[in-house]
């Protein structure tokens, strides 16, 4: 058995050690590393602080909770608001009152107590077929449940965080009962059962499976830049719904300072950097998102999709209805 013990010891010796000598910052990320790598590289070049990233799609909040006060995590990046609020509500974050950060990010995009900050916004837009749907900005989310779109809609799983947020905002505006009726109508209008990702729905429109789909705004730009997917994007118009009433549903990507951050100062530097002009314009240019920093213009491509009115429902109001949204999806068997 001794060789096994030896094996474990070797293992520990080989394990990447946290080196206190060189400055670094540890990031737990729900966002894919390849999305943020160029931005963190710019940060390292500027400050000499190394950025270590651990990416996972699920379970980061749970991991952080288990690790407790000896957690190596300094900050958390999320790709939607529900997850961001989840970690703050679990008490896994601490306040960041950095002046530069507070000046860069408008009030509605950060917590009053400094526990979370938005970095970018994105609209839950509609992708409509150029050839089979007349372009207009009169469409509303509510219309998707009416007879007009019978058998013409495609959507990814209702339980994806992006759809959960939209449904939660519907509950905030219309109440649980009305939202359930809306969900039932939407489900009846689906051309096929929920599947794939947002881009897959646009591909389905191109192939004629359906005429209209829900998708985040940045995918439009990403598809246009991909040689294979450009033809999908060319088959659709991007439409921002509900322009004559409350505006299009907005979600955010965001960040928070971990409660027991061992490299707190470095994390604060990175957070400030991410809200600053250079990083914000990179977010827009590379990921096609809308910067939260009002001093930063969206990239040319993002601007070309036009101005639009956004739903001003506070994010914290929306997130209250998250669990109800899950419940309703089960009740109408949305994904089945």
């Amino acid at each position, binding site marked *: 058995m001794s060789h*096994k013990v030896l*094996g474990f010891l070797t*293992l*520990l010796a*080989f*394990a*990447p050690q*946290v080196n206190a000598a060189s400055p670094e910052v*540890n990031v737990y990320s729900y966002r*894919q*590393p*390849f999305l943020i790598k160029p931005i963190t590289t710019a940060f390292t070049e500027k400050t000499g602080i190394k950025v*270590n*990233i*651990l*990416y*996972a799609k*699920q*379970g*980061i909040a*749970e*991991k952080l909770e*288990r*690790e*407790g*006060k*000896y*957690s*190596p995590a300094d900050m958390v990046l999320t790709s939607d608001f529900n997850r961001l609020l*989840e970690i703050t509500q679990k008490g896994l974050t601490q306040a960041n009152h950095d002046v530069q950060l507070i000046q860069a990010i408008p009030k509605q995009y950060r917590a009053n107590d400094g526990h979370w900050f938005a970095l970018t916004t994105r609209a839950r837009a509609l992708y409509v077929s150029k*050839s*089979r749907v007349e372009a207009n900005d009169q469409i509303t989310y509510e219309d998707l449940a009416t007879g007009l779109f019978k058998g*013409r809609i495609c959507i990814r*799983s209702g*339980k994806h965080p992006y759809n*959960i947020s939209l449904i939660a905002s519907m509950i905030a505006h219309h109440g649980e009962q009305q939202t359930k009726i809306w969900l039932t109508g939407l489900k009846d209008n689906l051309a*096929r*059962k*929920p*599947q*794939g*990702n947002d*881009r*897959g729905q646009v*591909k*389905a429109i*191109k*192939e*004629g*499976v*359906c005429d209209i789909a829900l998708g985040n705004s940045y995918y439009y730009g990403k598809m246009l830049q991909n040689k*294979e997917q450009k033809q999908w994007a060319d088959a659709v118009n991007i439409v921002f719904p509900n322009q004559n009433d409350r505006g299009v549903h907005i979600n955010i990507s965001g960040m928070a300072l971990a409660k027991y951050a061992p490299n707190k100062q470095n994390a604060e530097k990175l957070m400030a950097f991410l809200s600053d002009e250079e990083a914000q314009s990179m977010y827009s240019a590379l990921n096609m998102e809308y910067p939260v920093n009002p001093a930063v213009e969206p990239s040319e491509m993002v601007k070309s999709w036009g101005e639009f009115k956004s739903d001003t429902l506070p994010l914290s109001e929306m997130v209250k209805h998250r*669990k109800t949204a*899950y*419940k309703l999806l*089960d*009740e109408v*068997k949305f*994904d*089945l």
Partner: protein
Amino acid sequence: MSNNKWLIAAWTISIILILPAVFLLLQSTGSDTPLFEHLWATVLSEYIVNTIQIVVLVLLFSAFFALPSAWLIAMCDFPGRRYFQWLLMLPLAMPAYVVAYIYTDLFDFAGPIQRTMRALFQSDVAVGQHWFFEIRNVPGAALMLALVLYPYLYLIARTAFMEQGSHLFQVSRSLGQKPWQSFRRIAMPLCRPAIVVGLMFIGAEALGDFATVHYFAVNTLTTAVYDSWLGHGSLSAAAKISILMLIGVMGILAIERWQRGRQRFYHKYTGQNALFKLTGWRATSAVIYCFSLVFSGFILPVVILLSYAIDYASLNTDGQLGRVLLQTVWLALLAALITTALAVLFSFTTRVSSSASGALPTKLSSMSYMMPSTVLAIAVLIPMTLFENSFNDFWVAIGYQAPGLFLSGTTFALVFAFVARFQAVANGTIEASFLAVSPSLDMASKSLGKTDSQMLRLIHLPLIKKSVFTAMLLVFIECMKELPAALLLRPFNFDTLATFVYQYVSDEQLEQAAFAAILIVLAGLYPVMRLTQTGEKSI
């Protein structure tokens, strides 16, 4: 070592391996009746039906793929047999989510197959009115899983058929039984324990799969586990559903054991098998059968991956892949060695222990296999971080600097999770081959005054050598592909090939990580070929 020492070692290690599940159970005592009732009233019944359908279909497809091919390879001679015997293993090296991705891309409405069909046969039909077939459904997902899981059964059944030898079959034929009757009445019952082990692996993999069924938009009990935990925020409901699944599986296994009754087959044929030479249409069908399996489970996906890799070659040149490959191989190798050594320990303890409880360590240590991998990852963290936090507190209290998370923050956590998860794979393989070693050998060894360890070293290990290799191979390949636990438990800046591929697959951009996916497959190739060669020499 006396019996007791074996028992103590086996019990201690198996208890450590089951700790995550125990802690998860302890955490799950909270009340969640409303959530459970809600799930029950809405979606749970359909999830259960889907789950049963998936598992049953995967088992049927796998048996349909694996048993005939294993039989052909073990008993018959036909052109290409020498190559097919290891080619048929290759799909095992292919992660299911990669195959699923490739086939949906090919076969869904917008894919090239259906596009071509529409262009050829329905060019006059209006857009939106086309007939189309859906690949994202239960049979589709089951087919994908079976395509990469059948080699489990093939490998085990082939070895079992070989060890059973051809003379029994010849006797049966000489007594007037037709080939099919001999197969059904002689070969199958004799190989039943091995076949059940193979099917158990496949069933557990199918049950615990999340990535593939999710990709196919099929909701199963695993979906319910993830939903309750990550959506409704109830770890306790998630744990309860996991436990229900576990009970279901153990129930089925218990029925099988009860039905098998007290039959025992101590038979090991090590002579030269006389292969039945196939000619004419029989040989052609055998070749076509084996080739179509290899083609759809391996050749086609690899060709498509290669074409992706060439298309996106510029994106694959950041040079970190070599390091990732080494890390992954090293990790998988370590986990495979530990798991196999432990499996031998557990099975041997069962054998030499006089009481019935001697079999418990094997069973306990196999249980984590039934847990969905993400749940296992968090379950591993519960006891590990508790221990680390108390250790750190203590260290600080006596005036030293806190050492930090020296277990969960390092690759230790990964290796532990891999061992806990795949112990069942090694246990199953080794247990089955221990069962085939006649107890009379033990008695002879004892009567000649050998100790237990001498018996293990001199008698058992040489006899079960092939299974030890099999176990190591299976665990190695599993670890190469394992994803959810690796994602959550790996340290900073540490990737396995699977996690590297996944960050792109999760964005449905497999194309960009095609080269890394090919590396997963390549790393699995060598052990597969090596193993079949070893198997071949010893007969």
